[in-house]
């Protein structure tokens, strides 16, 4: 087995009484676009700063490319960081900002020139080499920060919410560019953001953190469709939840009794036992609205609709299931407010979460 790009092993980080990261195990594979997401204060930035060496783990071990990084200062680590504030040197022009790392590494004059030119071309800033950072737009500064980090050919590039300061349109463009860039240079990216959409659109794998704990690691699709906890389900999208109890296991499916509506079939993680309390999760886009009451006899009335362009969010109230959210296509006539509609979902679209997690 090849060495992981980053291997975080049983790491805990405390600041006084505050535990920022607890018992973290994480493996980032070489060449991967890996994201860590979570609300502010979840420990994602602390984790990134520990990989960079700006913080030392209280306990545990971090390796980069198979080498133990314990006690290794930031300037000796084979990683580079793109900072949230970009942290470009205001007294240096673009060329010298990008060349900073090479000069510290005592790279020869001619090679500095070729490599800086390459890096500047990579982020399409040719012609701006002599500009000072403050003369550049936010997007351009962001690209200088990228070039300044990538020019050193790090084993891992760490990105701390690098698109946070940009407006929405530019952010979407930069997401595409970042993903293309990562593919072309083949460097392992470790990307931290609180924006799940951003993480999903670029990443091979995503880790979700909350209160210093790792909640789940997986591909964006796994995380969205098969969340490990109620927190993950909510953080990466809207979820309708119904309380229930496992009644039986049939191959990879579970029979579950949902409070108020009776027995249904749903998928779920392995290892749930009969009798276990669970939450049944159905995403809004998987709730099907029918003109008439469905075969299960489920119905609801329309509380409100909101038009979002491509789709419409429909808020519903069901006598048996309470408040619900569904997504309908944006074209055509909207369901009338106050009208009664039938409700159904496919068995495959229902996912079980152990109710022990429901409290978090």
């Amino acid at each position, binding site marked *: 087995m090849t060495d992981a790009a980053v291997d975080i092993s049983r790491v805990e980080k405390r600041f006084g009484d505050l535990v920022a990261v607890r018992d973290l195990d994480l493996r980032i594979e070489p060449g991967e676009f890996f994201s860590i997401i979570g609300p502010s204060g979840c420990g994602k930035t602390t984790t990134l700063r520990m990989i*960079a*060496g*700006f913080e030392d783990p209280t306990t545990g071990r971090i390796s980069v490319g198979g080498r133990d990084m314990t006690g290794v*200062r*930031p*300037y*000796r680590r084979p*990683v*580079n*960081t793109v*900072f*949230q*504030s970009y*942290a*470009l*040197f*205001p*007294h240096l022009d673009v060329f010298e900002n990008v060349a*900073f*790392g090479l000069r*510290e*590494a005592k790279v020869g004059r001619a090679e500095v020139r070729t490599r800086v030119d390459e890096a500047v071309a990579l982020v399409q800033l040719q012609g701006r080499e002599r500009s*000072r950072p*403050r003369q550049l737009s936010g997007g351009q500064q962001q690209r200088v920060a990228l070039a*300044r*980090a990538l020019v*050193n050919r790090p084993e891992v590039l760490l990105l701390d919410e690098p698109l946070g300061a940009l407006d929405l349109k530019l952010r979407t463009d930069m997401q595409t560019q970042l993903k293309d860039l990562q593919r072309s240079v083949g460097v392992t990216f470790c990307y931290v953001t609180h924006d799940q959409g951003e993480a999903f659109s670029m990443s091979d794998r995503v880790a979700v953190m909350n209160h210093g704990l790792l909640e789940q690691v997986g591909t964006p699709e796994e995380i969205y469709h098969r969340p490990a906890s109620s927190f993950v389900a909510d953080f990466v999208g809207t979820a309708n939840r119904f309380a229930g109890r496992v009644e039986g296991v049939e191959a990879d499916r579970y029979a579950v009794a949902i409070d108020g509506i009776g027995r249904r079939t749903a998928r779920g993680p392995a290892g749930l036992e009969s009798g276990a309390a669970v939450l049944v999760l159905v995403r809004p886009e998987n709730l099907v609205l029918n003109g008439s009451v469905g075969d299960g006899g489920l119905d609801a009335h329309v509380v409100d609709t909101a038009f979002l362009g491509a789709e419409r969010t429909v808020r519903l109230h069901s006598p048996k299931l309470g408040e619900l959210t569904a997504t309908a296509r944006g074209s055509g006539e909207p369901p009338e407010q106050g009208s009664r509609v039938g409700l159904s979902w496919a068995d495959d679209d229902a996912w079980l979460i152990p109710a022990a997690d429901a409290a978090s």
Partner: protein
Amino acid sequence: MNVRRHPFAASVSLLVLLFLWLPLIVVAVNSFNQQTIMAGWGGFTTHWYGLALHDQNVRTGLETTLYIAVASALLSLAIAVSGALWWRRASPKARAVYDGLIYARIILPEVVSATALFFLFLKIHFTLGLTAIVIGHTVWNSAYAAIIVQARMAGLDPALEEAAADLGATPWRTFRRVTFAALLPAIIAAGLLAFTFSFDDVVTSVFLQGASNTPLPVVILGMIRFRITPEINAIGLLVMLFTVTLMSMAVLIYATAGSLGRRGNMLDIYRGR
């Protein structure tokens, strides 16, 4: 009613300008006046400048003053810069104490700190003279320097130093290439300011000068006690031009240095940002 155009405001402004500029103009004009008693215009001459430049008292006074001003400015910068480096990592409480000490040194009347030092030096048998004056000047000069350097330091994004470390710079290289480079305009401005303050100081110097080592401003003071000659006007104009040039340089360097990182500098406050 427009206060700015009220006759009272106008006459006050006029008086201020008159009292500020008229003596300076008189000094400048008389420095070229041939008439020794300066009762009227006796024709143009540069004779007094020659006299001033060859006056042995003036020359040693100037040498003493330059030595004191340079030493005090350098010492003040060392205190201000190391203080600012400590300040950014200090606890809020320690910062408040440190800031309090700075403001105390500025607010305290100079004659008080000079007298206190005078008695202290007598008590510990520290010989009055050049070193004593340098220490005396550094008491308030380091406070002014600290305020200027600290204002710049406050605008320095700590992420810049992390970025330098991230790019392979050792702590010493980070200090040289990022921290010091960012502080440099403030250091130059503070140095020029401290030099100027020290250059024209009388009070502290008089208290601490001891037997010899009389700095230029004290020499001038001594000269006008006995007789007023156009030579003093010539010295006055030269000192004036010198200090005005230094101050303008300090302001210019600070103003053109531009803002740092996210929070900017003192001039941004001035611009109303």
